[in-house]
């Protein structure tokens, strides 16, 4: 049995149903994975209501979301420290299981503090059809989630049945740290030293404080322009700029040199193209990109090795392991 659980009253700016790890295995057909921009908050929200960490839940960028509960349920909201969640206009805690009743109104209130996206999970997970193996919304392809689009006023979301769980809480010490000046791990390549970037370019890449452009979204996080020296001149008939190359498949989390504009490829990014990807953000750093506020935040890249990235991935996974969530008050 599936039940109508949530009705959207105010959809916010671009609230989407997402699922993690998204639509895998179709890069050869041009599909990026989609899924949450911040997989850490997303997975934590699901675990706090007893869902599988990747179950369909809501991603809410900055602008407030308001929903009505049509059934009793358990919900959890995760995200930036200064964001707040109201149940019938009374503030309730983030990062823990909240028991809600039919008729309750839940509202997320974002502030101007650090961070950009809030995640809302409901017990059972949203029951939306899987398209090409995932419920994640791709706004580019217009598939997944609710009719392949952002939520609208009046949308009614169903959830799958699930037994209530004892309330859980993620201790403050385990939660991700939010800031406006981020440090993001990167692994060099595939197209950096020695044949694309010079050693000095690489030092600039990792030594510069980059500003996040206002024109950033789920497709890409764009940084302020910079002209690298480059270890090459051009790509012949394939392009006049040294960042151009024979079209190549892009890695998830790639840092693309789009001419003179670095772009961190997002969940809905292009899967291939004719520009050099000079570095790649590993899973342990990718959630931070999802929490950068366009037009305000700054970031530095910290080079890590493949082995370090793997160790840091494990640490991030450990921090939101449901086994370490404590009973809530």
């Amino acid at each position, binding site marked *: 049995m599936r039940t109508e659980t949530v009705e959207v009253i105010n959809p916010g700016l671009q609230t989407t149903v997402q699922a993690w790890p998204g639509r*895998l*295995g*179709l*890069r*050869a*057909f*041009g*599909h990026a994975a989609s899924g949450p921009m911040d997989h850490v908050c997303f997975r934590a929200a699901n675990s706090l209501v007893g869902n599988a960490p990747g179950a369909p839940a809501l991603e809410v960028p900055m602008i407030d979301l308001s929903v009505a509960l049509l059934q009793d349920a358990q919900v959890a909201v995760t995200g930036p420290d200064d964001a707040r969640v109201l149940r019938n206009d009374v503030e309730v805690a983030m990062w823990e299981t909240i028991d809600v009743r039919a008729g309750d109104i839940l509202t997320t209130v974002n502030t101007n503090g650090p961070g950009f996206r809030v995640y809302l999970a409901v017990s059972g997970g949203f029951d939306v*059809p899987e*398209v*090409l193996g995932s419920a994640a919304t*791709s706004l*580019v*392809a*217009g*598939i997944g989630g609710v009719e*392949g689009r952002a939520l609208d006023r009046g949308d009614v979301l169903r959830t799958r049945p699930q037994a209530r769980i004892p309330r859980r809480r993620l201790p403050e010490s385990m939660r991700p740290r939010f800031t406006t000046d981020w440090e993001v791990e990167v*692994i*060099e*390549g*595939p*197209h950096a*030293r*020695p*044949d*694309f970037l010079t*050693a000095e370019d690489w030092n600039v890449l990792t030594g510069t404080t980059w500003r996040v452009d206002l024109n950033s979204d789920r497709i890409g996080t764009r940084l302020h322009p910079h002209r690298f020296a480059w270890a090459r001149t051009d*790509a012949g*008939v*394939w*392009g*006049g*700029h040294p960042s*151009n*190359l*024979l*079209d*190549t*498949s*892009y*890695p*998830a*989390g*790639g840092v693309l040199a789009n*001419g003179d504009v670095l772009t961190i490829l997002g969940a809905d990014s*292009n*899967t*291939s193209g*004719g520009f050099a*990807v000079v570095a*790649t*953000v*590993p*899973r*342990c750093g990718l959630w931070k990109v999802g929490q950068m506020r366009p037009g305000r935040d700054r970031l530095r890249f910290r*080079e890590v*090795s*493949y082995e370090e*990235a793997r160790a840091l*991935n494990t640490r991030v996974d450990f921090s939101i392991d449901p086994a370490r969530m404590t009973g809530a008050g």
Partner: protein
Amino acid sequence: MTGSSILRTVAPRDGRPTTWIRQAGDDQVLVEYDDTAEEVVSLNFRVHALLQELAQHPVDGVLETSTGLRSVMVTFDPEVIGRDRLMDELSDREGAAVDLDSLVVDSRLLELPIAFDDETTREAVNRYRITTRMDAPNVRDRDNIDYIVQYNGFQDREAFFARFLSTVWWTASIGYFPGLPSLLALDPLTQLSAPKYNPTRMWTPEGAVGIGGSAIVLYPMESPGAYQLFGRTLPIWRPVAGDADVTDFQVFRPCDRVRFTRVTESELRSLRLQVFEGSYPWRITEERFVVADYLAEVERTRDAAATVAEHRRVAAAGVEIP
């Protein structure tokens, strides 16, 4: 720190180009062929030879592969296979991949209509001119077809259109957006090329046909784009509800070949309508493609192709890059 993006270099041998394995994050590596060694169509056949070998002798822990024009991105599960071991396996597979003269691939032949210089793509070019870059050398004449004609040294538009129609096009990769094919000419005498927009065009209509570098693309959906536009074809993508296979969404599959037939704009409109209504009789033939035939053609036309290349080089040298 390695101080390098390149994890492995496999030296050229037995006529094969240098192969690099580059690091691409925490669960991917990129296998890439040296593009100075060979022309791009042959490099792309090497990509498909490697994929064929990987399909016949899978590597445990490899989750997916996706192709660029001269590279393969390999996604793996580090819990199942260590990266060093993966690179050993990939090097082995590359070494065992068949030579191009023995490569035979399953390849469908598609026929698609094209209307050149149609109203919709002209609108996209004009919008770019008005909203993005008035003085771009490629859009000065309110379309960018004359620019392609000049850059390739053709007498006139008709000569360009004829050359475009004369070849069968090879689907070298699918990507950028879902279902978007990048096509390369299988006729060695069709050496079209064009620089890309700078900056990128904000709007491209669905169905638009464009050229950038030596690749032709068909835009499956309204999107930004950087290729010079010269015509429009059928819709090649449709969102399908429910439990469907990826090939229900999109017309193109890897290794497809396509031949274009010229139609008028009003004919195209009615054909597009048939696609939207579901009554269009898609013309698709399942075939096997023998790469040796292509190589023989390259050999046979070597001198003529060199002449075309030189003519084009001279023409391009006199044209301003956007």
